[in-house]
Every structure is written in structure tokens, then in C-alpha cells.
């Protein structure tokens, strides 16, 4: 299979601004996107920086934009025309590597850890909790690849006011956790849950079937945010 591949390239030390480089290549149609990049590096003897660790679709480190869609490089099959860009809504460190630190710092403000005893008390009743473990398990599948953050139209417009789908999924894990006793109502408010328009774009891009929109809806439901408190 012959393909045309355009790759976003940017080395902040040398380049004034990012550019797209086109490569033509023959490859096996069974390849994944990450194999193509390695092939390009070998054939053209250049250096394209990208991050990848497990190469089995588990760690979530190799998320990129392929033809404007966020995908995991190690899971995505190849096509004849490919436009490879770094993940949208993040700043670029080099080539396809994004700066995850900034978003991770954001996450630090969301109290993403277990609080066993607190004065506020969780609104969930103990007897009800068992039903919630299924939702918690759903949230626990999240690998923080940030594909849903890259596609989220609200996050791209109001990054300072809306924490992005990943943050809510991680928050949902603790909200539905049977041993967590923190009332996370104020945190959720501050993360801008009211801004979510429930467009459902994050459902399709999730490679682990987490369904962030459903979890956001469930959180709204629990804290009765729809009814104005």
C-alpha cells in the first residue's frame, strides 16, 4: 500500500514556527500508525519526536490527532492519506509531544484522592453505594490519554473555566467510590460542570469505552445540578 503522510514538525530551538512535512511511503496495510512513524524515521533518516511506551493500547501516552481525530497511535490502523498532528488543545513541546504537565497541574486542584473521613460527608447513602460501583469501575478504565480533552469544544473555547472531560471522569471515580466521604459538590462546581453541553463527542473518541458524557450526566444527577441545587 502506498500512502501520503503529512507530519506536523516543530523544534522550538531551530524553527520559528511549525510546518508540515510530506512523506511518501510503501507500507503493509496491517501496520499501525506508530509503525509508519518508525518507518519514516528509518527511511528518511530524520528525527520525529513522539512519545510511546507500552505499544499495546494500555498506557495512553501515544495519543495524537490523525486526520483531525484524536487516536492512540499504537491502536489505530493506517490509511492511504494521513495527517499526523499533536493532540489539540495542548501546547507542543516538540513535534508530536505535548505538554501534559499543564493539564496535570490543573488536575491537582481537583482533589483527586481518597478522603476517607470529612466533615461535609458524602451525599450518597451507604446502602445505595453498591449500585454505584459499576459506574466507578467504568471511570477506573480511564488511562488519561486526553483524547476526549482534545475533541471537547467547550474546553477549547473556555480552557480556564471548564476542566475538560478527563477531569470529570477522574472525579467520578472518587464520587462513586464506596469509601470516599468527601462532598465534592463545590469542586465539581468550580470545575465548570454546568458548561458541558452534552454534545457527546467524547463518547466516540474514547478507546476504553469510558463514556465521559454519561459520567458527567450521572454526577449532575447525583448532586441535582439540573434542578438548580
Amino acid at each position, binding site marked *: 500500500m502506498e500512502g501520503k503522510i503529512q507530519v506536523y514538525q516543530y*523544534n*522550538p*530551538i*531551530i524553527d520559528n514556527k511549525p510546518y508540515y512535512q510530506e512523506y511518501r511511503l510503501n507500507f*503493509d496495510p*496491517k*501496520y*499501525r500508525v*506508530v*509503525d509508519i512513524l*518508525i518507518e519514516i*524515521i*528509518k527511511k528518511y*533518516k530524520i*528525527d520525529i*519526536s513522539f*512519545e*510511546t*511506551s*507500552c*505499544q*499495546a*493500547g*494500555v*498506557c*495512553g*501516552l501515544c495519543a495524537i490527532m490523525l486526520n483531525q481525530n484524536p487516536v492512540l497511535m*499504537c*491502536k489505530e490502523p493506517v490509511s492511504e492519506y494521513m495527517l499526523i498532528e499533536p493532540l489539540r488543545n495542548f501546547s507542543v*513541546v*516538540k*513535534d508530536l*509531544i505535548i505538554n*501534559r*504537565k499543564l493539564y496535570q497541574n490543573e*488536575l*491537582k486542584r481537583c482533589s*483527586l*484522592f*481518597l478522603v*476517607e473521613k470529612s466533615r461535609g460527608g458524602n451525599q450518597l447513602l451507604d446502602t445505595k453505594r*453498591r449500585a454505584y*460501583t459499576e459506574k*466507578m*469501575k467504568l471511570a*477506573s*478504565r480511564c*488511562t*488519561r490519554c486526553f483524547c476526549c480533552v482534545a475533541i471537547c469544544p467547550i474546553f477549547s473555547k473556555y480552557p480556564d473555566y471548564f476542566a475538560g472531560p478527563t477531569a470529570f471522569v477522574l472525579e467520578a471515580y*472518587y464520587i462513586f*467510590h*464506596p*469509601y*470516599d466521604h468527601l462532598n465534592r459538590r463545590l469542586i465539581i462546581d468550580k470545575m465548570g460542570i454546568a458548561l458541558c453541553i452534552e454534545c457527546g463527542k467524547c463518547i466516540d473518541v474514547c*478507546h*476504553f*469505552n469510558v463514556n465521559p458524557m454519561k459520567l458527567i450526566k450521572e454526577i449532575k444527577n447525583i448532586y441535582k445540578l439540573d434542578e438548580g441545587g
Partner: protein
Amino acid sequence: MNTKIVKSDVLIIGCGAAGAMSAIICKNNRVKTIIVEKGKAFYSGCTVMAPGGMAGVNPAWSIKRDSSKQHFDDTMKAGTYLNNHELVEIFTNEAGIVVEELEKMGAFWEKDSSSQKNQLRTGGGHRYPRSVFLEDHVGAEIMHTLYSQVIKKEIPICENTVILGIISDQNIISGATGLDLITLELIFFDCKAIILATGGAGQLFMQTDNSLGSTGDGVKLALEAGASLIDIEFIQFYPLGFLFPPSLKGKIAGMLYYSQLRNSDHIRFMKNYDPKNMELATRDVICQAIYKEISIGKGTPSGGIYCDMTYHPDGFIAQAIPQFYQTYKSIGIDIRKDFLEVAPTAHFIMGGIQVNSNWETRVQGLLGAGEVCGGIHGSNRLTQNALSETLVSGKISAKRAIEISKMGKRIKINNKMIDEKVVHLVKRYEQGDNKINQMVIRKEIQQVMWDNLGIIRNREGILKSINKIEAIDYHIKHSKCALKNNIFNRELLLRIENESLVSLAKCICIAALERKESRGSHYRSDYSTRDDKEWFKNIIIDKVGNEIQVKFNKINSNYKTKE
């Protein structure tokens, strides 16, 4: 070149489960801790990928007949009694406790119908089910829980920083030098104790389910600092690795307790090798059985065997291992009707740095934690022991590191010495004239090791690979890496990793050549029987100058083999 100096009490190298666990324990005891990670913290490493379970006996949920003693016996038996029984005893006693501790930190394990007790999984070699789990992402659950604690306790992490060498004076460590791969800045980590938690070295082999960063860096660092290696010839292969597509080749394809293995005649061949346990035999037995089936022509067209999951009730696989189910679907296999073609893949390295019961090496102030240490698993690791071992070793090594840092004095180092040692290290990369691609070298190492030191080994093959590895070593030493204008220098990282791989490969070859018997995961076709009389001992490897020295350590244990 300027050197930045970072001061701390305890330096932790590697941010997998072992590294993160010890960091949390250190921080709890108000010791200044820094984690250094080669890749991205909590994404890189092998812990995240672990699908199976975490073994540990705790009266709160274990079945009544089960005990730590039974866990101890199973572990020793799987390791053919070559294990360091002191370490195994500590490990089996602590395993249940750390599982509970992790739950208190926020991890969640699958519960039974009463939603009080943990559900338990069994595995090959465990007498009773004793492993907690959560769907098929146990490792990710552990990692995310530890991450939440690291964030909560605000432990600093140096990401994208690779450690080049440990600086020690008269067998006492004084720090380590690192290189920031983004800014290419040199860093000197001034500390009183170092915990190596760099994990295994699956990248030695062409087919492996380990992550890209598993290159045995810790083993090389420890060897050069003066520590010894133990049992390094034992490498575990996981029987179920994908054969296609190319990008998934070698990755874990399923769980042994949910599969039946069949040869080309669709016969469950394990009945010829281990009729009692069938697919729940230990991994070394299954891998060797698969190899024998393939070599007598009973393999599948693409050179593997069939993994059958069709016997499960409809929907069971999708619910029990959802991520695997997704993968099967994406490569066009309907697991309810079709067989999956699988072959063994490099999984775990049983050997590593020799440690005492405090997980302390021979060098004062240098400790190990996790897969990088050897001795605890003997000749074959019992399945599901790896995750709990990382946590137990992380915990105990941290406790010792706290003691050291509270008692120990900081060794004064003048800047001149750092400059001499560090600048020399880096200049090496720009010298040389060989422009060979490091990726090509990596592939060569993997090919040599896979061909000659895989599941079946023999003298001729090992000798051949020793020569080949020497030649590759020469190429690496004389290759050039441009440092200028290059942030995120992949070529440089690959080179540093290749150096670690080569030095580990040499040790593995030498130890495999020495052990003239077949035991556990080490199978020699020229010495195909187990020889308890002659070889009931550990092989210890030291590096003196540039020479590798081999010593033997006879085992004086009361747990002698009964079979």
C-alpha cells in the same frame, strides 16, 4: 557545561509501582524524597500494563484453608527452591498487608455478591485463589492510586531525566548524575540513599510484552557501582503473546485461566505435559510444552499454538476482560467462535541485583525495589506475585532508606570532582565517528538474544551470542550522537539504553553458559535434566574493573526439594 545540583535525602530512580510506593513511605516519614523517571511518570513502565491480579493472603478475605505459609510454599515450589527463603518469607507475610494498604489509599478490588469480601482469581501454581483484581487493568488501578497519593503528598518528580551513573566512594554512595533529555542539562543528585526501582529488561528480546523503557538500566547502574547480580540467567516467558498484527506482536494476548491451549490437531496438548494442572501449570512448563509442540510440527500456520476461549458462556469474556475483548474485535477475531493464534513472549526477568532482607545491596546506601532485584523468585516467578512484590519491596526498602538517611552523613563532594566525572560521561556521546542508527543496534541485540537465549538454549548458541554482543558493544561505544539543537533526543536515549542492554546481555550469557542443567525457565537442550546435586546454587556475578567475575552461592536451606 554547567551542572545543576539537586539535594535530597532519598533518591528514587524509576516511577513504577515500586518507586512510587517507596516515595510515599519516605514522604510519610518526613524524609526529603525525589523521584527520577526516564519517561513520563505514571504512563511509562510495565506496572500500568499488568492485567492479571495481585497475590496476597490476608485473613480478611482469603479462603479459610489458605495461609501465608501456603503462599510461601507455592512460591518456593514454583521457583524450584532456588529462592532466597528469607525474602520470600518477608514477602508472603507482607503481601496481604500491602494489598489492604493500597485499598486504604483508594484502590478498588472486585467484590463478591455480599460486596464485603474481595473476589479472588487463581493462577498457575497457586494452590488456592488468592489474587485480588479489577477487570483487566489491575496494574493501572495500582498506578493511579499511587499517583493520587504522590499528588496529595506533593512529592517532586523529575520526568524525562535519565540517570547516567551512580557516584560512590569506597563503597558508600554519595549521589547520582542525570541528564535532562528536554534541556540537555546535567543534574547532580546529592543524596544519602538511592533506591533503584527501574524494573526489568524485556527489551532484550525481539518479542516482549514489556514497555519500551524496560531496558535494565538499574542493573547496569548497580553493577558499575559495585553491587552483585544473582540468578540473572532466569527469564520468564509468557505463553500467550499475539502473533499478528505486527504492532501487537509479542503483547499479552489473554489470561491463562480463561483459556484452553490447543495444537494444530485441536487437542489440548497440556495433558501430555502436566495432566494435573493443565493450563494452570507454571509458566515455564507451559512455554517449554508449547515449544516442543511447535518443534514436532503441531504448531499453527504462523508458528504458534491456538488459544481457545470459545467454551465460555456468551458475554463472559467481554465482561471479565473488556480491554482484551476490544483488541480482539479490532483485529477482526470473534473470540466466541474463533481460536486465537499465540506464541510465548519475554515477560519478566527473575534475576537482578542481589539484596539482603532489607532490600539493601552490598554498596552502602544503595537499595533496590521491584523487578530490578533478584533472588526472591528463584528460577521461575509464580504468576501474580510481581505486583505485590513491587509494593512489598518498595515499602521495606523505603524503611531502610529512611534509617540510612537519618543516621548517615552527607558525603562532601567538591565541584571539581562532579565536573570531572559528569562532563566526561557526556563528552563520550559526542566523540566517535560511527553514524550507525541506534534503532538498528537495538534490533540486532533483540535478534541475537531471541535466537540464542530464548526458551531453549544451548552452549553453541550462547557462545555465538557472546561474540556478537561484544561486537555490538564496540559499535555502540564508537557511535556518535549529536547533542546540539536537539531537545527530546531519541537517538541519545536509545544509545544510553543500548549500553544498559548490552551490559546486561553479557551477564545473562555468562550465567546461562555456567548453569549446565535445566531448571525452571532456564532450559538447556544439551543438559536437559535438573541436577540438584551439582546445581542447587545461585550464580552471582560481579564486575571488577572491566572483568565480569562469576561466583557460586550454595543454598543451605531446609526447604530442599522433595520431588
